[in-house]
């Protein structure tokens, strides 16, 4: 079973079409080529589908990096 970070990394690689993406807690939008507001929406929809969670409006914009994103997912999953 891959961990959440690995799962998230797969989603990133697929969406941004780059097999070399390696995520860490500190990875932020400026570190990923093409991570703009429209891609961000696609990213969130894919995360929701893969993790079976739901973010509410505006919640995502407040997250600053991958670490916070993972925390938010964990919290929604009740872990």
């Amino acid at each position: 079973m891959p961990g959440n970070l690995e799962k998230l990394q797969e989603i990133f690689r697929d969406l941004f079409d780059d097999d070399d993406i390696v995520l860490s807690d500190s990875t932020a939008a400026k570190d990923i080529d093409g991570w703009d507001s429209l891609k961000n929406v696609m990213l969130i929809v894919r995360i929701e589908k893969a993790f079976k969670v739901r973010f509410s409006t505006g919640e995502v914009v407040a997250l600053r990096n991958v670490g916070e994103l993972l925390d938010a997912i964990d919290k929604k999953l009740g872990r």
Partner: protein
Amino acid sequence: MNAEIRARIKERRFDAALDLILRVRPTDPTEEIEYAADQLGKIPAQLVSERVPTHKRLAILGGATTQFLTPQIRLFACQRGVALATYESDFGLFEQEIWSESPTLRQFEPDVIHFHVSSRNLALPLFAEDPAPLVRAQTERFVGLYRAAGERFRCAVIVNNFETSGERAYGALDALSPGTHNSMVRELNSALARALPVQCYLNDIEQLSATLGKGRWFDPRLWNETKTAVSFECHPHYADRVAAMIGALFGKSKKCLVLDLDNTLWGGVIGDDGIAGIRLGAGNPEGEAFQEFQSYLKALKARGILLAVASKNELENALAPFREHPDMLLKESDISCFVANWEPKDKSLRSIAGQLNIGVDSLVFFDDNPAERELVGSSLPQVTVIDVPQDPSAYVQTLDRANVFETLAVTQEDQLRGEFFQQNQARELLGAGAESYEEFLRRLEMRAVVEPITAANIARVTQLINKTNQFNLTTRRATEAEVRSLLDDPDVYTSTIRLDDRFGSNGLISVVIGRVHADSLAIENWLMSCRVLKRGVELLEMERLLAYCRAKNLRTIIGRYLPTAKNKLVSRHYAELGFEEIENDGAGTTWRFALATQRVPHGHFITVQ
């Protein structure tokens, strides 16, 4: 799938990547469609234009965000044989682009404009005491906009109607009171459909959103965050519908559905089970499903889709249910070409295309047997093979959602098409009995109505211009708006022929368009339906051309032949009419007919009415 596409692109095996990209269907997982659509942009343009010969320009003007949608329309249009260059307006500027005659849009020279608008652009209140003026204002706003778009940019316009909402602030009164938002939207949709300008085509998103589910269609968070009016999971279905309409505009719609029999039109095997044993009709759930499917097929036939049968059966057995089974909705006369034998099906499909005089790429194959689908799909990749589900109750939905038979207008010729082929068989029998071909032509008692293009025949003329592939000298396509622009041009010659004979009417089957330059007439389009091949219609057209030139004191007629993969049939057309070849510039040949010195070879046997 994504990983495979990625690997092929990385290895620069673009051809192989394109194969995979073009195989993605709207029902596949959204991530795969989004990925394939994005990757299509990375395939070298040269390769795409070789594989997809028709190139068009689509402008998408959005009342909502269009960035997610555009790549998918490109993908599904490409699958239908139209490679699109695209233009997107800035968000929300769909009206300004037209009314200000945007120079960037003008420069783009669109062949098609699509307005990506939705109920979100209406600004209708949730309830109005006096809804009629509001609906009227919105009708005028959009009809006016769409008409202006078509006229100012001289192109086809694909527009949406408006989707009703899944929410009902007025509860059960929603449909009852004319003042509710949904009632106003419904009223607007009817008014829009009635007043739709000629060059505009309607994408029915009210029906599509209902089919997919209102709750799935609109994602309020997506709207609030990015002004995206259709959810990501519904984008592919929307894109596929628009792509199918674009395909239809440029002659890419399929013409004929080839059907298997056993377990496709009825349950069971006629050769083993016999008439009494097959499952068809009321009283048996499976039998009802097959009958439902037949009823849908009859509707397809009624609007001009040819039905053919390719069955592995003894002919007598295969025909028996059509002749004897009381619950059989399809009759022998509904089938334009009936093939029942023990040959491989790819061979039967080739034979069907040959007999109906249409390209193999105009066929759609529907067969419950996966092995047959595999065979046809691999040996005839041009044929669209429907992924038939196990359950006959799902046949109608599966075929319908493939969007392969999109039509933008149904003409009288469409409704009669199946019969043309029936009559053709009678004509062929007559041919077999005649002593000479001339004798055969004489016995046909052909009568023609020759007239220019008019408002009354423009729909059929446009259809013929856009779907005729074989007898077509220049394969120049045109939208209805473009054809219309010819009508009042004093330097343009147009001619159409409607042909009847003792077996029935063939409808309007020939179109010639020319333009006067000084003392010569240049033929821009010359095309004819293949069902009247070798009947002398081209000689009659030539006769009219000569009469026109004499009346106008023109001295020469100039014709062009532009070869395509499909029009080899007419490579000698001008030679046969007595033209001399004067140029071969690589793109095609140019032919000249000098009225003073050259003669048309021989006469025809058509009486002009």
